[in-house]
């Protein structure tokens, strides 16, 4: 990933270069200092959360945030998993994101493909209708969205939430994938047509495999975006028994409010740790793809 060029050309070090070398060393030292500082600022709060999850309330209020806990016990984790339902919220999130990302990718790539490679009346209108969705902030239409779902009986249902996730992910997915499908060569396309492949078959067996790299980036982008969604579930998953169906972000936010009343801070920290650890694991394995996927939108 880095641009380190390792072609070390042999260079004779002369007197004036000696001076620049010393300056360089000082600069390098400062650079590392600054970078280490930011690494600590980034990782510090997360480490603190993990440490605090093992502490009792008394210990948490003692100060010394980075002191090790006096005893290690997983009790707080059990209570976060059972009583605070983190396990349930986690699985809810997994289920919703799996289905909605799959749906987003299927419908998004279908629409993007047709819009990018077929000319028909109204093509541009449909395309710009989708892309203009990028200009609207989601939260400006909360009220109408809520009432649309209410009238359709979709409030507090997974399929309602999933359909809304898909609908709000389509603009960017189509914008990105349409540009991608446009760049694919036409020769193979034509050859397949000559061989008698149907349009549908061409899409699934030829175009999708060819667009793999773009599909991977945008899939990651959608998984992360939908996993982290907070506003839409907050609007949709309300009503009777909704707390059984909450997704992880909602659940954690709620534990945070509850913890204030019951002074169960360590449970909150355990819940936070449980929600962060899987992300770290996934990130450690796929960090290249994840970085590429999330920045894909900005460096088109």
């Amino acid at each position, binding site marked *: 990933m880095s*641009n380190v060029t390792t072609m070390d050309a042999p260079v004779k070090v002369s007197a004036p270069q000696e001076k620049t070398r010393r300056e360089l060393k000082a600069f390098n030292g400062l650079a590392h200092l600054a970078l280490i500082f930011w690494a600590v600022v980034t990782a510090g709060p997360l480490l603190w959360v993990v440490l605090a999850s093992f502490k009792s309330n008394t210990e948490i209020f003692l100060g010394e945030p980075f002191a090790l806990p006096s005893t290690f016990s997983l009790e707080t984790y059990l209570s976060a998993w059972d009583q605070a339902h983190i396990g349930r919220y986690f699985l809810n999130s997994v289920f919703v994101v799996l289905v909605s990302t799959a749906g987003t990718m299927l419908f998004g790539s279908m629409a993007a493909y047709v819009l990018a490679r077929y000319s028909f009346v109204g093509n541009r209108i*449909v395309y710009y209708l989708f892309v203009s969705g990028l*200009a609207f902030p989601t939260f400006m*239409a909360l009220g109408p969205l809520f*009432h649309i779902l209410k009238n359709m009986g979709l409030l507090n249902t997974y399929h309602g939430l999933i359909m809304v996730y898909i609908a709000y992910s*389509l603009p960017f997915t189509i914008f990105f994938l349409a540009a991608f499908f446009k760049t694919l060569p036409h020769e193979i396309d034509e050859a397949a047509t000559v061989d008698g492949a149907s349009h*549908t078959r061409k899409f699934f067996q030829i175009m999708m495999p060819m667009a793999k790299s773009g599909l991977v980036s945008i899939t990651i982008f959608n998984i992360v975006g939908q996993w982290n969604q907070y506003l839409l579930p907050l609007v949709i998953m309300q009503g009777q028994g909704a707390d059984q169906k909450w997704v992880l972000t909602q659940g954690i936010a709620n534990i945070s409010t509850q913890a204030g009343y019951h002074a169960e801070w360590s449970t909150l920290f355990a819940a936070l740790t449980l929600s962060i650890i899987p992300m770290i694991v996934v990130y450690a394995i796929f960090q290249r793809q994840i970085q590429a996927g999330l920045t894909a939108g900005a460096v088109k």
Partner: protein
Amino acid sequence: MRHGKYPFIIGFLAVPVALYAVFVVAAYVQTFQLAFTSWSGFGVIKYVGFENFEKLWNDDLFWKSLRHNGFLLLLLPIATIAIALVFAFLLNVGGGTKGGMTRGVRGSKLYRVIFFFPQLMALAIVAVIFGRVFSSDKSGMLNGLFPDSWQPWLFLADDRWALTCILVVLVWQAVGFYVVLFSAGMGSIGEEIYEAAALDGATKVTLFFRITLPLLWNTIQTGWVYLGIAAFDAFALVNIMTVDRGGPDGATSVLAMMIYRNTFEYSQVGYASALGVVLFFLTLTFAALTLRVTRRDAV
């Protein structure tokens, strides 16, 4: 072989267009419509002309929230981009020249991996964490780190500093993403340009301002728009982190919070829609202005 083209096109577009029309287009269209009504969310819809906008004009909380969004809009991009540029530069070019080649500092890959991680976390979870980090007693990470002799800082409970806390959290989360983004941009700047400049005796500072910055301009511009749009949001942070959700005493109220409360707590869907319409035009103006003002000739 064009046989069956239209059935195929319609078949592929039907579901995505239907989903999009019902849940997105209809919702936005209704927002514009409801902005001119006094609808509470129940019962008949009554049109009231521009009444909501008049009310808005005289609403102190609206102007306050707008100022807060403005504060974030101004400082979030500046702070994030400045910090990210410096780190990206250190990571990519900071290692100095060796045989005329510029290179990054050692361990630059590890730094990048660590810096990027907050971007993966949900803003809602970040908000919960920082709500505790900024706790105004000894249980907070920062107050816990301060010496015992200090009075605990109030942070989010202090109306002068609460909004700054929000800004800090937003910057904390965003920097890593832009470090990676700018790094990618810097990576595509040809080695030979740095090489030539270094041979001409250019210092690091000159390299940064005369080569890196101009060549990265397009990426910076995109980043500016993204961060600006994030500054118009900030809902999750305000809703989860702050005292009284927008407090203390309205000190962290933002437009998104007002829209949410008017819709779901004050039964003022009409008024919330008017706020939504204002927000839409603000966002659009901001994006258009940014792209216009910062436009430069391609280098």
